[in-house]
């Protein structure tokens, strides 16, 4: 099981969902999707990296 792939898949689903829930026009949807997706992926990786020394 690839943990990174699951992280990306989860971020993709959630980002698409909120882009369509909170925005109505195309460019705004794309913007929110990208912002949400990047925050979830990069934030998840950063948190994982920060917690790496924690047993």
């Amino acid at each position, binding site marked *: 099981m690839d943990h990174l792939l*699951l992280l990306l*898949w*989860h971020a993709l*689903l959630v980002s*698409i*969902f909120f882009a*369509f*829930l909170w925005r*109505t026009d195309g460019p705004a949807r794309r913007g929110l999707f990208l912002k949400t997706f990047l925050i979830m992926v990069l934030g998840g990786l950063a948190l994982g990296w920060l917690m790496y020394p924690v047993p």
Partner: protein
Amino acid sequence: MERGSRTMSDSLRSSDKDSGETSAPFGLLVIAWLVPGLGHLLLGRRVRAAVFAGVVVAAFLTGLALSGELAVPRAGNPLSWIATFGCLGNGGLYFIAKLLGFGQGDPTAVGFLYGKTFLYTGGLMNLLCVLDVSDIARGEKD
């Protein structure tokens, strides 16, 4: 649109002009909960309906495939009630999976916790869809 003729989506929307009510039809909210995307479809939001249905079903199936557990309330475990609320958000998918014997969960599986996360996520997203349907039906959102 011709005066006097109403589409299904028009008739499902509460209107201040029609009845003075500001609440969404209860049956519509139940339908929106039971079948992800159907509430939006009935209100004429076809693209959003397809996207929401796809996202919720994908999250739910991923959760089951990863051996996630469809939560049930357990005595003495208050958190299980919250987990059940999240899983029940999946609506009809929850009941169908339970009837077919899926979602028992395998705590020894590598994907168990990930699976539960996907199941909760799908349920909570579907509940947000129900709130969205309510907003659209009350005319507070396009």
